[in-house]
């Protein structure tokens, strides 16, 4: 059974990579089931573009997907890619098994802020600590979107969510700082408002030997935007307004050095934070194995 290709004669593909994804193949459009204003459509389009431009072998770059709204991105990643949908938060652990069982592979892990920093925090820390050759794309929309807008570990202080009475007063968790502390060797953060930067980072991460973590700040209009206001006290219920808010709150890391801690409290510091070569787990293990097999 091959995916049925429905053609719309009068409709041109919106994007040159449209027909790469399973959803695109089936509908002829860049099809997605995300809400209006969601950033995942942008991310997956860029992801597909990088996948094609870099000529990635689908057999060598399996896509390991966690649980969240982006799980539906299953239909938006290249149709030829091999994807495994795991349990909530367990994608890094499953990728570890895949990588060790077949060291020729480089898993690309798609995970979200609740998935990676909440329920799967421990697995994420230890993936970074081992410096296992893999790419982690951490989609940060500051909220639990799929379950309906509950507070996430990354929700900024002062926001309103479905499961906080009044404003959020918990400290928020910084995925980049966590990855740096845990020992990931390529760490960067960008937003969907910076598509070229994202593609640039992703290409670098794919070539980097070791754990690469790219946090992508992405808008959730339905559950974060609608319940929160921007600096002009305007409800951020459209994709544009929330994207503007993200842009306004994104500070490049070289500029961030000039800002005080209080000023950075509600900002997303973007840019590259670390790029270094350190022993990679599976390569080191192969050495151990070789020695054991000879000895």
């Amino acid at each position, binding site marked *: 059974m091959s995916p049925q290709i429905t053609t719309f004669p009068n409709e041109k593909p919106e994007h040159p990579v449209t027909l790469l994804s399973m959803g695109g193949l089936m509908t002829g459009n860049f099809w997605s089931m995300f809400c209006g204003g969601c950033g995942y459509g942008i991310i997956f389009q860029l992801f597909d573009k990088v996948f094609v431009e870099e000529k990635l072998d689908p057999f060598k770059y399996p896509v390991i997907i966690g649980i969240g709204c982006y799980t539906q991105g299953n239909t938006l990643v290249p149709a030829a890619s091999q994807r495994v949908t*795991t349990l909530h938060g367990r994608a890094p652990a499953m990728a570890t*098994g895949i990588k060790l*069982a077949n060291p020729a592979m480089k898993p690309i892990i798609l995970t979200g802020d609740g998935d990676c920093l909440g329920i799967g925090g421990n697995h994420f820390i230890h993936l970074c600590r081992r410096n296992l050759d893999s790419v982690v794309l951490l989609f940060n929309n500051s909220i639990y979107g799929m379950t309906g807008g509950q507070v996430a570990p990354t929700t900024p202080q002062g926001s309103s969510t479905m499961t906080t009475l009044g404003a959020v007063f918990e400290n928020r968790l910084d995925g980049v700082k966590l990855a740096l502390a845990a020992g990931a060797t390529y760490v960067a953060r960008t937003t969907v408002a910076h598509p070229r930067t994202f593609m640039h980072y992703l290409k670098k991460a794919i070539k980097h030997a070791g754990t690469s973590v790219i946090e992508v700040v992405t808008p959730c209009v339905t559950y974060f935007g609608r319940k929160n206001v921007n600096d002009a006290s305007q409800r951020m219920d459209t994709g544009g307004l929330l994207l503007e808010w993200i842009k306004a709150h994104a500070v490049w890391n070289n500029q961030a050095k000039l800002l005080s801690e209080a000023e950075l409290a509600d900002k997303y510091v973007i840019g590259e934070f670390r790029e270094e070569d350190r022993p990679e787990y599976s390569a080191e293990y192969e050495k151990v194995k070789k020695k054991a097999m000879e000895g």
Partner: protein
Amino acid sequence: MENESKRYMAPGKHVLMGNVAMAEGAMAAGLTFFGGYPITPSTEVPEHLVWRLPEAGGAFIQMEDELAAINSVAGASVAGAKAMTATSGPGTSLMAETISMAAAMEIPLVICDVQRNGPGTGLVTAPHHNDVFQCKYSGNGEYEVIAYAPMSCQELYDLTIEAFNAAETYRCPTYVLSDAYLGHLHEPVVIPTAEEVKKLVVARAILDKPNQEKFTFLDREGNIQIPPAPVLGTPNFPTTFISQPHGPDGIPVNEDQVLKPNTLLVEKITKNVEKIARTEAYMLDDAEVVIIAYGLTARVCYHVVNLARKEGLKAGLFRLVTIWPFPYERVKSVVAGAKAIVVPEMNLGLMAGEVERCKPLAMPMYKVPKIADIHEPGEILAVVRKAKEAHP
């Protein structure tokens, strides 16, 4: 990468610890990945495999917790490795989530559960067959597992090989249920030659051609047939590999179509019970008192039957080598002609409930519970005598 010269243990008689025999059984079965987390009383399994696996070309990793351990095992199995983990009761409960996922995605994997006393932390070095229900019922959803209950170090070796074969054939989580005493027992184990072992082992089937008919992992129209597990990085991998209920192409289905895939997950095991279930009968032909036992307790019961026969008591033993899937039909036929049933267990009587489902309502059943220690033959024998006296 495979180093066959170091995979198999030298043939002949070895004195092995139970946990080591289990690890060697896994090696013989073609283990290529072990992901674990240390927990008493199973620690000797990772301690043995940490050097045995790499020299044979496999991979060993100690993960950060049991959740990660079982997920790495599932991941390795998806990538084509024969994978297992070793744990105890508390670890198994943490793994429940992923075991349920593995059942849904039909990922073959083996879990060696060296059972210890519970609930909670329990007495960590004391045996207690309290995971016999946990191993099947701990995860969410309806699914079936296969569980072996060995009673000697030799069986730990042999049945671990069988467990791997069953996992490959039926594509479901498979348990080897050892316990703290059995795991630390040192006994002679006869290791067969590498050629003999190779004949026993069911290898992972890898389809080399993209074949839509064959790669489907729930395509069982009419007769239930289980296609080989898809391997990541080969052309036979489905469009999407997901733990949601899915159709033959791997694409998730809706509420109105979910009945079939969920039923098939259960029926692939329940309809093959006669093939999967392994039982042993000892002096059952004329038995009036039937003892039903499994695991280390069954070993005591062989002696109990001998003692009872010396006294002229017509006792017999029906031993469950696999406890899941439970062989209801076999147990029904065994207890049909009996006057009384005795169910000694190293717990308060868990499997006795399953036996109760098979016996006629009026038939008396005696439980012989024991916790954190092995039964004395006399304890069971006393109950056999009592049963015989009450129902002559």
